[in-house]
Each structure stands twice: as C-alpha cells, then as structure tokens.
C-alpha cells in the first residue's frame, strides 16, 4: 500500500532504503512494518475466508457432498486460528504501528528492531500452522479451543500447531510491548495520557491485556504438549488430571483475547464517528474509563464460556452476574457514539458507513451476548449456531468492519490518494447486506437446535443453512471489491489526498502530508489542545 510513497516528490527528508528485499525484510520503519502487517492480515483474511467458503459449501445442503468430516473439522479449527491470530490481531497491530506514532507525534515505535522481528515471526508461524493441513495424519481437528482429550487424540501435527501458537504469541507479546513503550515514552511534549486520541488509548489498554494473557495461552498449550509427549497428566483424567482445568486456563486467556479483538475497534469507531459527525466525541473520559473497565472485567468472567461443564451453583451465579456487568460499560460506549452523532453534521463516506454498521451490528452481537450470559438460557444456546451467530456478529461486523472502516479512513493518509468513494460504498452495501444474510439466520438455526461444528444436519435446518451459505459466498465475493478498491487507490487513483483528507479530521496524524513521509515528527510537534480530536479534554 505504501508503495506509492516511494515516488513521492514533496518529501525531501525521505531516506528510504532502496531495493525491495532491503526495504521490506530489514525495515525498522513503523509505517513499512504497519503496511507489512496489514498486507499479511489481508492475505490471511482471504486464507481463512476460503476455509469458511468450504465450510459453507458443505453446509449448503443436508448430506455430505464435498468433504470428509475430518477435513471439515480441520477447516473449522484452522479457519478460527487463522482469522483470530492471522487476520484480526495482525490487522490491529498494523493499524497501531501505522497510526500510534502519528497520533502521538512520535518519530517511530520505541523499539524498532523488535518491531521488525515481531512481524517477521508471523509468516513463519502461519506457514507452520497451514503446513499441518498437508501432513500425514492431517491438521488439528479439535477446534481452535484445543480442548483435551480431543485435541491430543490426533496426529503429531498438534506439536506443530502448538509451536505455531507459541510463535504467534511471541509476536503479539513483542508487538504489545512495543506499543506500550511507544505510548508511555514517545508522546509529544504536552500530550498527556488523558489527551491522547481514543484509538491510541484503546491500543494501550489492549496491549496490557496482551502481555497479561498471551503467556497464559502459552502455558496452557505447553501443558498440552507435555501431556501428549512427556507423560504429564495435567488434563488427563486417567492420571489424576482434570480436562475441565484446561478450559479454565484456556478461557482465562480466551476471554481477554476476545476483547483484544474488539477494544481497538472501539477506538477506531470513536475516531471515525467524531470526524464524520463534525462534533467532538461525547464523554471522552467516560469512553476511556469504559475501555478500562471492560478490560478489567474481561479477567473475571472467563467461565461463562463453560457454563455446561458442571460448575457448582455458586460459580455459575457469580460468572453470570460478572458477565452481565460487562453490558454496562459497553452500553456506555454505544450510547456515547449515538450521542456523538446527535446534533452533529453528518456525512456518510465509506468509513462512516462502516462505523455506523459497526455500532448497530456489534450491538446486536452484544444483545445475543447478554442473552448468552443468562445461565439457564445458555444451557440451551451453548455450542449451537446461536453462539456462532453471536461471535461472528461481534468479530465480523464488529472487528472486521472496524478494520475496514479504518482502512478507508486512513488509506488516503497512507497512500496519498483518495480511494473510489463509489466503489467503497458498493463494497460497503454488498458487505453489510450479505453479512446479515450470512449470519442472521444462524440465530434461528441455533435456537431450533442445530449444534455448531457439524458438517451435516437434519432437513429442518436445510432452508436457513442454504440462505446462510448464499450470504457467505456473497460476502466472500464482496471482499474482492475491497482488494480492488485498495489496489486502485494505491496504484491507479489520480485523486490526490490533502494532508487533512477529511473535512473535520482532527489530530496529529492529519497534520503530516499525505502520503505520510517515511519519517515523521523527527522533531516533536507542539501540541495545541484544539487540534485534538475529542475536543474538551476535561471530560
């Protein structure tokens, strides 16, 4: 994407290394690394997406038509791992790399060499993960949650999967450390923490979550590894272990992980809504505190993923109440977005369309989340398509829509060119309609009794599955438009972006030229509070 920057003429300070390999392999530049992350995430989005297409094709009709159940299980497992660790998280890290130094007036990330390393681990981690699909005995089939004993039952590919997860974990941890060090250390003078743009805030909190929980995942998968190969019995009932304990450790990581994938999205949407409402973000401080409380609550609600394992009554009640509490800070965020729009002066460019769709559709995912928190009802919802619908609403129309919104919002800053608004809007409308055709019927399927992770089903589930599959193919095809719009904007668009790009854009990133030069803020900018997007910093 940043290729266009190479030939930029008005940037005389550029000291970009020449030569493709030299530039991209050895880069320590936050913008180049951000671009690498984003391109990698896009490739992984299509990799995971093609697996989803296989899943939806097999589920198009009752009866087994295309793949064996073993392969279907590999698809559901690897689709999830690729989308979570390969698409959503690297996309957010890429956005953080690009935008955090620009938003806080820093010349680069605090630890640029580590930054290079944390990116370049990822392609190898995913090559390793994807290579298991071609190994004898096939790839992981036990679901991305890797519940033992099932995950340990299969072939030795689990060892490769665990190594790949370790590498992804190391990459995310290093990325998170870098972001923390950058935000705490390299802010321009006068840019106090409570004056930071909300996207930077959301990433600071996310980074703390990452360093706190990714190592727990590493511990959990290490225990799986020793259980399989070194004779330990952490999770093996025969040896005095407890399979349920794995679920506790896994979800102690897993629930904060869910918020790692949504908090930066909150930040992005907050930025975009205020820009296109031409009005300061309503309740900036409340938004920051809501982010922090959601992050805190994420540590104490993990067992709501496992209400059916047979927890004692007291545990179920506690986790139900704690989970319901999350609705309060999340509600504050939604209400504040809506209020930010109220009495604004709204325009509906593509980023704003995606942000509005995010607010509505993420809230629908939040509603089903609230329903899932009600333990007696969860006994019916658990492990059905209702859950599948729920987490795809929060992750696809939540996280992915926010990433797309961010791409449209900042692409002119990255590439120096405006994307095609017409095709951006076509992409939006195709995506937003198809994604609902894809996922909304899955609520009905789950309520009617269709379990998740099954390759075949009763005739009663046939109609909605077919609709869902049609939506799936449509949504998948619509994403080709996304690539088209990006490629056009980066390489072919004649429509040069101004440095401010959007009429009401505020914040330091809009004070540098478009495309952003290779080196920015070599001398710290002077902060003027009125430049900060959220307006009144006292609230």
């Amino acid at each position, binding site marked *: 994407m940043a290729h266009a920057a190479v030939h930029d003429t008005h940037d005389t300070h550029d000291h970009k290394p020449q030569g493709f390999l030299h530039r991209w392999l050895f880069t320590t530049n936050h913008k180049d690394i951000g671009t690498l992350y984003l391109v990698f995430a896009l490739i992984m989005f299509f990799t995971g997406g093609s697996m989803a297409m296989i899943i939806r094709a097999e589920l198009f009709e*009752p*009866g087994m038509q295309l793949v064996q*159940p073993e392969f279907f*299980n590999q698809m559901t497992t690897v689709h999830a791992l690729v989308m979570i660790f390969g698409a959503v998280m690297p996309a957010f890290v890429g956005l953080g790399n690009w935008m955090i130094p620009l938003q806080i007036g820093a010349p680069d990330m605090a630890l640029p060499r580590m930054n290079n390393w944390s990116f370049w681990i990822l392609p190898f981690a995913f090559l390793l993960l994807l290579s298991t699909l071609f190994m004898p005995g096939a790839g992981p*089939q036990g*679901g991305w949650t890797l519940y033992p004993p*099932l995950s340990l039952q299969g072939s030795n590919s689990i060892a490769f999967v665990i190594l790949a997860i370790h590498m992804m974990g190391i990459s995310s941890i290093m990325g998170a450390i870098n972001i923390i060090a950058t935000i705490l250390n390299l802010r321009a003078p006068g840019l106090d923490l409570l004056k930071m743009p909300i996207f930077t805030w959301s990433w600071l909190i996310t980074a703390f979550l990452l360093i706190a929980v990714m190592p727990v995942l590493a511990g959990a998968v290490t225990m799986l590894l020793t259980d399989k190969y070194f004779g330990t019995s952490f999770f093996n*009932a025969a040896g005095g272990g*407890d*399979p349920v304990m794995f679920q506790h450790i896994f979800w102690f990581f897993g629930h904060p992980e869910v918020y790692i994938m949504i908090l930066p999205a909150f930040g992005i949407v907050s930025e975009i809504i205020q820009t296109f*409402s031409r*009005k*300061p973000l309503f*309740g900036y401080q*409340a938004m920051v505190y809501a982010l922090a409380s959601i992050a805190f609550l994420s540590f104490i609600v993990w067992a709501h993923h*496992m209400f*059916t*394992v*047979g927890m004692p*009554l007291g545990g*179920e009640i506690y986790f139900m109440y704690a989970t*319901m509490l999350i*609705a*309060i800070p999340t*509600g*504050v965020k939604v*209400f504040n977005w*809506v*209020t930010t*729009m109220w*009495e*604004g*002066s709204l*325009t509906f460019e593509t980023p704003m369309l995606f942000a509005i769709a995010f607010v509505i559709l993420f*809230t*629908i995912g939040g509603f*089903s989340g*609230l*329903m899932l928190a*009600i*333990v*007696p*009802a969860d*006994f*019916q919802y658990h*492990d059905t398509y209702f859950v599948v619908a729920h987490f795809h609403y929060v992750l696809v129309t939540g996280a992915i829509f926010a990433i797309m919104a961010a791409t449209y919002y900042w692409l002119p800053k990255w590439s120096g060119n405006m994307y095609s608004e017409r095709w951006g809007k076509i992409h939006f409308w195709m995506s937003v309609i198809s994604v609902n055709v894809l996922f909304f019927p899955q609520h*009905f399927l789950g*309520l*009617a*009794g269709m*379990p*998740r992770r*099954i390759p*075949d089903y*009763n*005739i009663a589930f046939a109609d909605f599955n077919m609709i869902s599959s049609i939506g799936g193919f449509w949504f998948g095809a619509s994403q080709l438009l996304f690539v088209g719009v990006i490629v056009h904007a980066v390489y072919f668009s004649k429509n040069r972006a101004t440095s401010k790009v959007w009429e*009401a854009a505020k914040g330091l990133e809009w004070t540098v030229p478009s495309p952003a030069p290779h080196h920015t803020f070599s001398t710290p900018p002077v902060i003027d509070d009125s430049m900060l997007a*959220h307006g*009144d910093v006292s*609230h």
Partner: protein
Amino acid sequence: MRRVLAAPAVVLLGLLASAAANANPQPWQLNMTRGATQTAREVHDIHMVVLWICVAIGVVVFGVMFVAMFRFRKSKGAVPATWSHSTKLEAIWTIIPILILIASAWPATTLLIRMADTSESEMTIKVTGYQWKWRYEYVDYFGKQPGINFVSSLESQANRTRQLGSGMDPRDIKVDGHSTYLLDVDKPLVLPVGVKVRFVVTADDVIHSWWVPALGWKQDAIPGIINSAWTRVDEPGIYRGQCAELCGRDHAFMPIVVKVLPKAEFEQWMTAQAPAPATAATATTLAPTTAPQG
C-alpha cells in the same frame, strides 16, 4: 414441575401429537422450543424475556441513531453543536441498564437454583458418551436396580446416507412426516412420564455434551467426572437431540432420542428388558458390561 401423578393415559395419547410437534426441529423454526418439561418452558420464558428486553433497548438506541442520521445531515444544512459532555445523561444510561440487569438476573438465578436441585429424584440414569455413541445405564428406579444397560447410536439408514458420495437422499428419512435424518437412533433412551429422573453424565474418551432441547438443558459429559442433571417430562413422546460438544470425526452423527412412555407402559418395557429380579442383593449380576461396542 412438582406434579408426580401421571395423567390418565387417554389424555396423554391425545397429547402425543402436540408433543411430537414440540419434539422435532421444524423447517423455518425461528425460536427456541417450549419443550416438554416445566424447566424447558421456564428456560424458554426467560429467553423470551431477555430477548424482548434486548429488542426494546435496540429499538430505542437504533431509533435515536436513525433520527440522528436523518435529522443531522450536513446535506440538510445541519450545523454541528460543540457540546461533548453531560453528567446527567451519562448517569442515566449507567443506572437504567443496571436496573434492567438486576430485573433479568433475579428470575434467572431462581430458575438456575431449581435446575440445580437434583434431590428427591425417583430414578437415576447414567449416561456415558463414547466416540460416537451413547451408553445408557438404568442405575435406579424407585429404589430398585433395573439393570438395563445399552448403547444407542445413529440408525443405519441415516448412517449410510450420510457417507460422502452415498447418492442417497437425506430427505427420504422420515418418521410421521418429520425428517429424522441424523436425529434417530437404533435404541432410544426410554423414560417414564411424570417421574423425576436424575442423570449422571460422564464420558469414556473425549468430552461430549448430552443435549435434548425439549428437556431444556445440556450437560457436558467429561471423562473421569460425573455431572448430574435432572428432568421430569410432562408428556409422552419422542424427543430428539444431538451431541453438543465437538468430539471428533463423527460428532454430527451421535444423536440422542428420548422416548417417554406412560408409567405403566414404561414398567412393561422395563420388565421386558430385564427379566431378572431387581434387588440390591443381585445388583452385581446386573452391572454394566464395560466393553464398548463398535
């Protein structure tokens, strides 16, 4: 829920038709089943309460949002306001959700407590999940040991049909006009109507989950651990469910069928299954055979 006496058989036979309708998933079914037990109905009711709360909040929030989108368009000449804070508003939308949450948590908690209460049960069934079938052991029936123990797995026609490239049409598998594809077994679990049945659920190899939507709950079956749950089915009928926890290759192909009979018929069935006298002294002869089948 506390009703113990079985209603007259005639009435029950009349109810069979409606029970059958509740027992199968329906094409185009939009909502959770009301089920066949008091618990399932209460679960359905609390599901509806929370659903309507969410719909109401959604209508208000999205309504305000759409009004904003139409009223405050720049193209209509809207001039942006500059306010960005209101303590009163923020207090309101912190407190109101708290009240709504308390209102929905209360009935959920009381229902949960009732669902956890397995005491005063009159019958105990041990359910064991295997890859990929279920074993049912009748441990206890009103203080006696029926000594019934069998394995229940996917019926053979569906099993042939579901093979990749079988060329068979899943739509051909029907019972009473309802598709039973992947929802029928060779040997169903048979239960009496109106009796509080306690289940102890475990697994042999990996984690499974025993789920019949009409009963209103699912319970994970975990190797080495027994979990308990209970039900009291109100109407005779055939209730279908599936394994609900990914358990490997044939996770989709280990259905659950519960056949609920009037008490007298159930006792006949039970005698036919286990002719041996069922007393504690002979319990040893009636215990499970442990080798898995298949």
